[in-house]
């Protein structure tokens, strides 16, 4: 195992907050070429220009730099220790100071944190990450996906039950309906729809997170293509100004399901910059 977890996580967080992955850049270029609405084309070009400036300067894509969400992948013979988790948290703190993250942590007791009367922590590193999600992987590595979640998609996202009536089309219809409402309200579009389908609210939300880590703009399933195409047909457009590019892609993950008439679906209308993601390898075991 390598011993520089803190620096890997720090640099990974800065990358997540400042960089579009190559498949996302290509998705934007494709959308600019195919969009016929002049206003929409202008918005798409401006967002891509912003991404180029952010990557060049390693500066935030958006002033809402987001809440760190972490997905840790652990190979068969690898071990995660409490010290390693603390190193990851320290890397997050250093990354937030370096990016810099927006200082937006609220201080105080439970009540003061709810009503925001406890005041703002002036330190960017005061923004604590969400609980770490851990999953297994086939390679003998420990790999960390760092995702930065902005506030707008959290306001417009939802986790709810759908009665499927033994027909996948019923679930897709409801997803499209809810997604159209969410995308129209979001403002900061074009979106990437992140969707998890699970057996509980927790499971659906964790699948939504994994969908963002695994999703690719250039590899889309039939269901993902259908959702994207139907939401785009609503003509909401970038920033809600009209046009055919409301959604760049859909990242959907369907987990195990139970014998029941209900499916729990989590939808996050990830904004024009999301998924803000970077992946870092924290250690690798030589199995030779």
């Amino acid at each position: 195992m390598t011993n520089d977890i803190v620096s890997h996580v720090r640099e990974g967080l800065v990358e997540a907050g400042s960089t579009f992955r190559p498949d996302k850049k290509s998705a934007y270029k494709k959308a600019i070429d195919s969009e016929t609405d002049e206003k929409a084309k202008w918005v798409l070009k401006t967002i891509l220009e912003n991404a180029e400036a952010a990557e060049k300067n390693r500066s935030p894509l958006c002033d809402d730099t987001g809440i760190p969400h972490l997905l840790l992948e652990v190979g068969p013979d690898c071990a995660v220790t409490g010290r390693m988790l603390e190193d990851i948290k320290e890397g997050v703190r250093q990354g937030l100071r370096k990016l810099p993250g927006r200082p937006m942590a609220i201080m105080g007791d439970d009540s003061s944190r709810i009503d925001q009367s406890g005041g703002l922590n002036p330190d960017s590193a005061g923004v604590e990450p969400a609980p770490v999600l851990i999953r297994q992987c086939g390679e003998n590595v420990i790999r960390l996906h760092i995702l930065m979640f902005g506030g707008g998609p959290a306001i417009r996202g939802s986790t709810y039950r759908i009665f499927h009536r033994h027909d996948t089309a019923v679930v897709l219809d409801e997803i499209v309906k809810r997604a159209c409402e969410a995308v129209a309200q979001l403002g900061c579009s074009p979106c990437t729809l992140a969707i998890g389908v699970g057996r509980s609210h927790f499971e659906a939300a964790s699948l939504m997170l994994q969908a963002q880590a695994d999703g690719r703009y250039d590899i889309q399933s039939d269901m993902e293509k259908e959702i994207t195409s139907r939401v785009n047909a609503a003509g909401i457009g970038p920033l809600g100004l009209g046009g055919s590019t409301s959604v760049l892609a859909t990242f959907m993950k369907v987990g195990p399901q139970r014998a029941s008439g209900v499916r729990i679906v989590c939808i996050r209308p990830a904004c024009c910059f999301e998924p803000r993601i970077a992946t870092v390898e924290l250690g690798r075991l030589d199995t030779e």
Partner: protein
Amino acid sequence: MKTIQITTPVSEETVKKLNVGDTVEISGYILCGRDAVLPKVLEMIENGTADRLGVDLRGQVIFHTAVSPAGVGPTSSNKLEIESSIAPLSRAGIRLHLGKGELKKETVAALDRYNSVYAVIPPVTALLGSRTSEEKVIAFPELGMEALHLIKVDKYPAIIGAAHGRSIYDK
């Protein structure tokens, strides 16, 4: 698309010529404020103490944003405290409100009544950072990043979202 250059302070004549869908680039000194500070500025206007701000509100632009080490970027202008500030600030001389999101019909009508416009700015923080050269707090420093700020900008890109009683979001 032709881009119209706007320099602050914005004249009455410039505003009259702007139409929904025009793309503009804004340069000069502009104010920044959002939910927390705008109601306080309104209070000062009502109390007749706005001159203590040290900035002439006539012809000004107000950008609905916080100013933090992470940069600037529009918050939703249809948040209660922000949208309700648009009419009285226009009456006080603000000529251009810069933010994002759809406004109510009555707000669009009020903008027209006071010869003011609303422009939508994409949330392009990195790009805006490269076009911002000065920033200072001019009132309510206790609000931190949500204090009233004055910043100097060069060619901020925006699109006119409401003007002359019309909205870009009208179906």
